[in-house]
């Protein structure tokens, strides 16, 4: 990049920051690093400026690079990190207008990082990039000391489990002993209460006695059970209680765990975050063009990229399309007062369609969304039938046409309620099935027992098997997973040699089946 161009870019940055401030965004000093395209491609694959070696990063790097090299498409243009001092990359060979667009977009991200309740929490892992850099060095040493295969195996195991995290992204689950203490005190409190009631003669002596007996039993269980309460953070549990992990392996797992925890807030807010950045880059760019800071030709380049990035995807959802639409929709609806009880309860279709109270609450609402929502919350509240209809969302199905040797994609359903349900599922639990550790001493032999919270969707069989293998590798004793297959309770077990799948015929599982179409997809 020529000096002249750099200087112009610096001027643009100043103006962009001024505009952002005027619009009410939080402005924070951000490092923009001008790099070659390759560097950007790597950053995209490795998640951090420097990270340890793993084939999955290599795969992603290869993927981005192939698209970039061969199709000319997929120009990498955006990588921003929620560090203490946020950092973003600009590609030196990208058109000037694209780099300006990227800056305007990044300003939106930085505001979101600082504004949003969840990504703000992600900032508490501020030194995560430094950690990744040191981890890369340590892992290399481990490789030469213990062999690449062993290092890869433990990384694989960690990565298999990393997205199973506590529901509340802001809280860590207590360790076994803390959880036990709390549970015991809770039960003891209940016992005292029951005893008091028995003394007072309330509710019949027999009944109280039975209740106390049951509580005593529960107390005994709480004293010995491990974990005392189901644990969602499987990887953390494995790290703490594994029967075989060596120090260096624990180190590797803790790096992976830490990175996943740091990235989880981003993962939970991906759609909103991209939506917010796109919403703002559109506005900021509009002003830059209005002020004549960019030429007509550059306007063309900008529009070209903007349209490409935000276009609808026929087979999938583009967050750059759906994300900003959420804010546009909310802004419009809240400006017109299309919210609240009165609006919801309006049964006159015509009146409802034309509803406009000039409430002008739009700006307030979009800032509120970006400050305190996750994607899941946004789907729950804002994906109304009219919004989904306006987005032209649908469910499609793949069908093999044997005659023509083709797979055809066919629109199967446009029912907004079903679409909303699918989206809610997709944005819950970081998209993972709900699986908890219920017993870390199964068979009184230190075996690990996991339970799948079945919600009508079954687990993918092959993935389940492979994940159990990886879990075993880190746990060191047999691992089990209780789930539902073909509507029957099923137990997968892996003992280090082979996987067994026991399907209990006698005990049929029954569950609600109202949204069955949801689970066929």
């Amino acid at each position, binding site marked *: 990049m020529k000096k002249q161009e750099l200087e112009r870019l*610096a001027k643009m940055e100043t103006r962009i920051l001024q505009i952002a401030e005027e619009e009410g965004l939080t402005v924070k000093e951000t490092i923009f690093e001008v790099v070659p395209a390759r560097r950007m491609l790597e950053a995209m694959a490795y998640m951090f400026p420097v990270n340890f070696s793993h084939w999955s990063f290599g795969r992603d790097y290869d993927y981005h690079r192939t698209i970039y090299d061969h199709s000319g498409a997929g120009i990498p243009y955006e990588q921003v990190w929620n560090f203490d001092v946020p950092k973003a990359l600009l590609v030196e060979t990208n058109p000037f207008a694209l780099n300006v667009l990227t800056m305007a977009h990044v300003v939106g991200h930085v505001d979101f990082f600082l504004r949003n309740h969840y990504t703000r929490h992600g900032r508490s892992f501020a030194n995560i990039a430094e950690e990744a850099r040191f981890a890369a060095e340590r892992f290399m040493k481990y490789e030469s000391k213990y062999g690449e295969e062993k290092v890869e195996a433990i990384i694989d195991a960690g990565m298999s489990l990393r997205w199973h995290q506590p529901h509340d992204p802001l809280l860590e689950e207590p360790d076994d002993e803390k959880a036990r203490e709390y549970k015991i005190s809770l039960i003891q409190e209940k016992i005292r209460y029951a005893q008091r009631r028995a003394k007072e003669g309330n509710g019949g002596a027999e009944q109280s006695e039975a209740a106390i007996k049951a509580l005593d039993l529960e107390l005994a269980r709480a004293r010995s059970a491990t974990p005392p309460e189901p644990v969602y953070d499987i990887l953390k549990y494995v790290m703490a209680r594994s029967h075989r992990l060596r120090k260096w392996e624990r180190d590797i797992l803790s790096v992976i765990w830490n990175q996943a925890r740091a990235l989880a807030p981003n993962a939970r807010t991906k759609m909103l975050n991209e939506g917010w950045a796109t919403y703002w880059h559109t506005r900021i760019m509009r002003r830059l063009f209005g002020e004549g800071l960019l030429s007509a030709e550059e306007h063309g380049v900008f529009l070209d990229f903007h349209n490409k990035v935000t276009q609808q995807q*026929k087979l999938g*959802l583009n967050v750059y399309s759906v994300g900003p639409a959420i804010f546009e929709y909310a802004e419009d609806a809240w400006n017109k007062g299309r919210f609240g009880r009165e609006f919801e309860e309006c049964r006159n279709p015509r009146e409802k369609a034309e509803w406009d109270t000039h409430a002008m609450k739009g700006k307030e609402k979009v800032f509120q969304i970006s400050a305190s929502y996750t994607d899941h919350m946004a789907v729950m509240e804002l994906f109304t039938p009219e919004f989904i209809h306006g987005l032209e969302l649908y469910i499609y199905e793949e069908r093999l046409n044997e005659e023509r040797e083709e797979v055809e994609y066919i629109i*199967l359903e446009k029912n907004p309620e079903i679409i909303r349900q699918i989206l809610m599922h997709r944005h819950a639990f970081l998209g*993972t099935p709900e699986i908890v550790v219920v017993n870390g001493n199964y068979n009184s032999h230190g075996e690990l027992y996991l339970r799948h919270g079945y919600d009508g969707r079954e687990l993918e069989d092959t993935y389940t098997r492979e994940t159990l293998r990886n879990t075993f590798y880190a746990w060191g004793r047999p691992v089990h997973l209780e789930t539902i297959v073909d509507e029957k309770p099923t137990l997968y077990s892996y003992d280090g040699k082979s996987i067994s799948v026991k399907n209990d015929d006698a005990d049929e599982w029954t569950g609600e089946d109202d949204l069955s179409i949801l689970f066929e997809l």
Partner: protein
Amino acid sequence: MKTSPSTEEASMPVIAPEIVSERGKADARRHRQKQRDAIRKQLPHIIAEESIITGKRDRIIKIPVKNMQIPEFKHGQSKKGKTGGLGQGKGGKGDIIGKRSVPGKTGGKDGKPGSEPGVDYIETEIEIAELIEFMMEDLGLPRLEEKQVRKIVVEAGWRVHGTAHTGPQVLRNNKKTVQEGIKRFWFMLEMLHKETGRAKVTCFYALREADGIIPDALRLLENLEFAHPEGMTEEDIAPFPIIHPDDERYHRLERKTAQKSQAVVFAMMDVSGSMTDEKKYYARSLLFWLTEFLRRIYEHVDIRFIIHHTIAKIVAEEDFFRTGESGGTFCYTAYEMVNSLIESDYPLSQWNVYAWHFSDGEDFDPARTVAELKKLFEKKINMFGYGEINPEESSYFTAELLDAFKKEFDLKETREGDLKIVASVDDDTPFIGAVIKKKEHILAALKAFLKRDRWQK
């Protein structure tokens, strides 16, 4: 762009990039390695693909290769076979919004790709040769160590090799001859010097004057009555070749021969009524790969196709797999034909001989078949392979032929997974048999047929 635009160049936002690019490449390599391993695992399916074995050889085939995924607990696809997702755009219920071609889809029941973790099908091109490399990694042909491949000497014209003292003028090796002549010059000079006591340079001029003839030179040196410059030193000696008939050198010619390795495959197949299309397909698949392997090892491979029911006949390749006859089975007729073909066209001194027979085990006269096989073994063929193709679990006839073989030869039964393999203990009777029941057995059978060092002592 850290600071205001007035910042000097030194603090411009060009920060030296951190080097990860080697890591990116290395990690990408590791991923591709894993993909290769996955292909290897899929080999039993891939090699049985009909599109591979029915096409032309040495072409590039396409197989879907998946990006490897980190295994995670995840929600599966519906049991009802529906796959799909959410999309965005215009269209109503039932509209087709896109298409994707699925080339090479055979529709066979085992044709589905493996379901180990992996999505994102990427069609990767792979050559048949590369597939064979994969297989070769843990395979080798029996008796294919250097000493075991019978190399046949063939004449391939003449070549110059070394020198001779006699020969026709056209082959005179001038360079060598002159070299000899120079040697003779120095020798003579030394002799003249010793005989006459004259200075070497004087001897040189005498020798030159005498045209290299020693008696003349001696005479000249006696009285020095010949023109020679004075005051010369030894450094002025300019040697010239003095060529005697003994010094003549000629190029030596040799007959050129080459070691060539050639093999013949006798592919025999039962085409009686009990051989269904499915069985023939297995035979064809096995045969395709077996000959592909031989082609990597021998410079020349002949294949003769022999079908038989109650009589045997030689057919063209196309007909080999197409022919179906009704009626009974006499396997010996095919073996007989191989025996006579070896005698007439493929002498063992010239050819490596492989005989493979595919049948469903039915034979109306096993005793005679065994007798014919014995004759083949007496001729010292490289290998006899027997594939009993028997996909139906409960066949209504017993596999008489294999039983007969077992009775006659010293055979040992082993298992490769769930594939039954029957092989001779040593190479006096180089017999390998396999009982093939399903598609996945094809690769295992290949491995058995091609196992390295099977008969190594």
